[in-house]
């Protein structure tokens, strides 16, 4: 599957409190969460984002709280994929579990700039900068995680693999 969109570029340690502040966690409706996504970091994000856009972060993206509301808000805001130099552990799990595509690529994270258009081949883990022409390769997921991703998330995986339901 190939994704393409314009880039929202952020720095290191984008934490789940700025992705979705706790004051909005009195609901778990993804659409309502998306209305406040990244509001304390980038107040214009929700106005500027269009379906398919891609976030490129630095180190330790999604650090802090375990709130799954963070990847849910990003996904519901229309973001098709998050690329970062590295992800915080719980955000990484959560993204895989809910089916938000994420890729680790230090080179892409460092080189890609705000507003550029990029294309991502999830299967091959290849990130192409359509404005600059460069290509970057991301870490491949281990087979177990690929299974979860291909199932469409952990719930579907569990239904099929562990409980024998389809």
């Amino acid at each position, binding site marked *: 599957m190939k994704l393409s969109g314009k880039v929202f570029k952020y720095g290191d*340690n984008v*934490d789940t*409190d*700025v992705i979705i*502040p*706790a*004051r909005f*966690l*009195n*609901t*778990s409706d993804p659409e309502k969460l998306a209305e406040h996504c990244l509001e*304390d*970091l980038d107040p214009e994000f929700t106005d500027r984002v269009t379906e398919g856009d891609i976030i490129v972060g630095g*180190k*330790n993206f999604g*650090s*802090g*709280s*375990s*709130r*799954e*509301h963070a*990847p*849910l808000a990003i996904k519901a805001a229309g973001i098709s994929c998050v690329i970062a130099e*590295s992800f*915080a*552990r*719980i955000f990484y*799990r*959560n993204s895989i*579990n*809910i089916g938000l595509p994420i890729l680790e690529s230090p080179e892409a994270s460092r080189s890609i700039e705000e507003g550029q258009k990029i294309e991502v081949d999830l299967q091959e883990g290849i990130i192409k900068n359509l404005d600059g022409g460069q290509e970057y390769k991301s870490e491949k997921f*281990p087979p*177990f*995680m690929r299974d*979860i991703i291909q199932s469409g*998330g*952990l*719930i579907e995986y*569990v*239904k099929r693999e*562990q*409980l024998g*339901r389809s």
Partner: protein
Amino acid sequence: MGMTMVEKIIAAHADKQKVSPGDILLAEVDMVLGNDITSPVAIEEFKKIGISEVFDPGRVILVPDHFTPNKDINSAQQAKILRSFAREQELEYYFEIGEMGIEHCLLPEQGLALPGEIIIGADSHTCTYGALGALGTGVGSTDMAAAMATGKAWFRVPPTIKFVYSGSLQPWVGAKDLILYTIGDIGVDGALYKSMEFTGEVIDNLSMDGRMTMSNMAIEAGGKCGLIKPDEKTQNYLKNRAIRDYTPLYSDEDAEYEKEIRYDVGKIEPQISFPHLPENTHPLSEAEGLEIDQAVIGSCTNGRIEDLRKAAEVMAGNKVRDSVRCLVFPGTQKIYQQALQEGVIETLIEAGAAVSTPTCGPCLGGHMGILAAGERAVSTTNRNFVGRMGHKESEVYLSSPAVAAAAAVKGYLVHPEEVVK
């Protein structure tokens, strides 16, 4: 080659003789935990799986502690989802307001976090249970849902960093200062995906409360868990609490660590983490004089009896400065009661502190002490991210309870020894 504690715990739960860092496997979990923010999503996902009952009603723990007692209608709706689910599933460990405490103070107190066990919690500070030699680790709501259905979760076996603390602590320096110092040294991603093992004579001499403060903040360095070897102190703590027999597991002598980091604690002063990252740690002497509007004492990091005692020791005979709001949050009802019996609460109230029923409240900017634009708090909590305790232009400085109490009295950051009467 031997195994580290975390490797042994995962191996024991995955029916393996040996596991190594990087292995990914399904393991059985002993307890599954959720709160009023994360559980509603988990319950919705659980229902999608299409089975009617949780794997074991004695192994799912629900604690409504974040926006409770409920701050608004929406949060009351969320809490109601937990309450209904707990009744419908006949969960043994649902803690209603009145019994409820801040989850990571409550579970150890209730004997629900045991050495050698795996506890996954849809709350990042589940790593607190490492202080009891348990693999406690934070997960999201979907992991919680899957574990409620199957009793299992997937794990990537982490490499372990061994931390060795030696020397003698200065007066007014304790567990919070040690962990802030450590995070300041290795950074907020210094233990990303890794197990932290806290060892050495200083850790041996810490109380259980102090150990829990240290393990609690492993996540602030990116850690999967923050483990401490269970010892006699642990066993004594668990006597008359543990809900079942347990099997402690220990790192082998020849276990392989990714690295070993040693600290001589003698030169560590009280520590302050400046906004907006826990790694922005400075010695208190570099922060002295910084004025504050609010002091928060409590949370899953520092809401235990020893923490309240320290705050009271500093505040005894003193008054909270007019310009400061001082808010105290005992971690559980039992801690609250004990503090009452010891006269700790009396001392704090006499000094002008407001004492609340247990709640996570202000720590995450939920309720009960939100900051306005431009305001500054000193707080014994665990995070000082942008907007963490309120307005995005507010600031949180992390400290120990003694330092927060001293700041409440003076109105600015100051060494506790200058305040104690």
